[in-house]
């Protein structure tokens, strides 16, 4: 009698339990709603607008906006300038950061913490304030420009052209690269260098055959973030050159918020190409990471 009643009560309790579970999951889902709504309004909807409107030209569906981009030497120059600045600055920054981080490992831990904190802080030094600082030291009458001129190292330095911008880009890329690479270098064990030295490897051989293959996923991953960071950069260039230097973000912005020609749909098409370019670089990067040491294991 007693044993028979047990399954009966079990059956009766589990059934409404299921229903209650579905109901109790309904209320929590409501909590997600305002979050999802805001995210949709300010992130998804603008992206959809950009995607859809890049195909709309004079109120009909067409590829005209894209054709216009490939016909316009000016817009293509914006892409070239952006790519050159991004790739060059990312390469230089990642080399500086990698040397910096690998040398920093030889420091006492308290000093290392201090230096890393300092680097973190300079990571926030970007955009308009950074452009100002660069004008002060490297502008036409900047302290460093004058110093270098006095000793005849340079004739003149044009901060407002590609080399000035490159210096600015490298400056804001280095702290980011350090931040991203610093944890990765923990993967290197000191014993490996000792072991390779014992086996007769020179320092460059250790780096070429052991350290770099181990670090390559981190280096490639960081490289991609740096490129994306530089391609999307707008505030620093805009503040330094008042929008007169032709990079792709400045082109996009001037087409939606400039004073003269407002062509939001053309801006949308350029935006889509920019995103595609970033996606393409990311995919290449993923393929390279896939072939590296870590993924093989």
């Amino acid at each position: 009698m007693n044993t028979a009643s047990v399954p009966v009560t079990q059956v009766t309790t589990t059934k409404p339990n299921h229903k209650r579970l579905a109901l109790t999951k309904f209320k929590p889902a409501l909590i997600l709603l305002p979050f999802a709504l805001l995210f949709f309004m300010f992130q998804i909807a603008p992206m959809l607008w950009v995607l859809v409107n890049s195909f709309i030209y004079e109120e009909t569906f067409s590829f005209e906006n894209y054709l216009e981009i490939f016909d316009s030497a000016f817009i293509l120059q914006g892409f070239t300038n952006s790519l050159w600045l991004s790739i060059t600055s990312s390469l230089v920054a990642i080399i500086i950061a990698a040397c910096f981080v690998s040398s920093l490992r030889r420091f006492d831990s308290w000093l290392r913490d201090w230096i890393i904190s300092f680097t973190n802080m300079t990571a926030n030094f970007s955009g308009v304030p950074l452009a100002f600082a660069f004008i002060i030291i490297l502008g036409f009458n900047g302290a460093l420009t004058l110093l270098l001129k006095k000793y005849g190292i340079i004739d003149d330095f044009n901060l407002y052209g590609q080399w000035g911008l490159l210096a600015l880009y490298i400056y804001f890329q280095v702290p980011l690269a350090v931040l991203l690479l610093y944890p990765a270098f923990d993967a290197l064990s000191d014993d490996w260098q000792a072991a390779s030295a014992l086996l007769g490897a020179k320092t460059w051989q250790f780096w070429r055959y052991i350290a770099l293959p181990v670090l390559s996923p981190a280096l490639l991953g960081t490289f991609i973030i740096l490129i994306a960071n530089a391609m999307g950069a707008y505030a620093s260039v805009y503040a330094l050159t008042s929008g007169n230097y032709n990079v792709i973000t400045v082109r996009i912005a001037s087409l939606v918020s400039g004073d003269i020609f407002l062509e939001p749909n053309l801006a949308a098409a350029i935006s889509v190409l920019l995103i595609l370019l970033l996606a393409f670089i990311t995919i290449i990067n993923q393929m390279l990471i896939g072939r590296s040491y870590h993924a093989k294991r």
Partner: protein
Amino acid sequence: MQNANSSSFHKFIVYGTVTLLFIPILATFIYSISSSWGATILPDGLTFDWYSQLWQDPRFIAAFGRSLFICISALILSSVLIIPAIFVVFYYFPKLNGLMNVLILLPFAVPPVVSSVGLLQIYADSSIQIVGTPWILIGTYFTIALPFMYRAIANSFEAINLADLMDAAHLLGASTTQAFFMVVLPNLKKGLFASLFLSFSFLLGEFVFSNILVGTRYETLQIYLYNMRQTSGHFTSALVMTYFAFIFLFTWLASRINRGAPS
């Protein structure tokens, strides 16, 4: 012998890089406290006039106030919406976590200039007039703070054993809401505050959205900074250093709190 050589080599690399990173900050600081610094390598005299001039400029105070208002509102909005959302995701719909991790990358992956194209077009003609007002900035700042906030808070959630903690709270007679406020929230405090300070210094430096979506109609700190570019370099340096002091303070607070947090 060789060891000493390589040690000085490492010192050279590290101090060299630190010096390069420090030069623009130091130069800006010296410029901000020098009375005049024309076509000479060193300044003529030292003064704090530029700082007092800055702090007496009502336009600066107003711009700073607006920036504070927008950043703090955006962060309050983020906290109120994100924490319960993460709780719901982790506790009721753990499968959604994968999707969320992809979604929160979007603000990172899409350059702000691109999002602002769409935002400007959608909300310029819509019935809700928010372009040119602080409200559109609060909304966009919510999305750009999201990756930082989500990661930091989700990490805290992963560190605590949420299911067991909730079971224990329920067993002791707490409702889910009670358990959320009295058990879960206190456990998130450190991660939350660290991410708030970090996001704050990040948002205070935001220029793209405020320039394209709002511009001079609601002059924030960065817009003010940009608009002041034609005035005296000493004045703008004082401005940059003041801004920077705040950033330093908040980044430092964030790292202080983070160090105390269980990782």
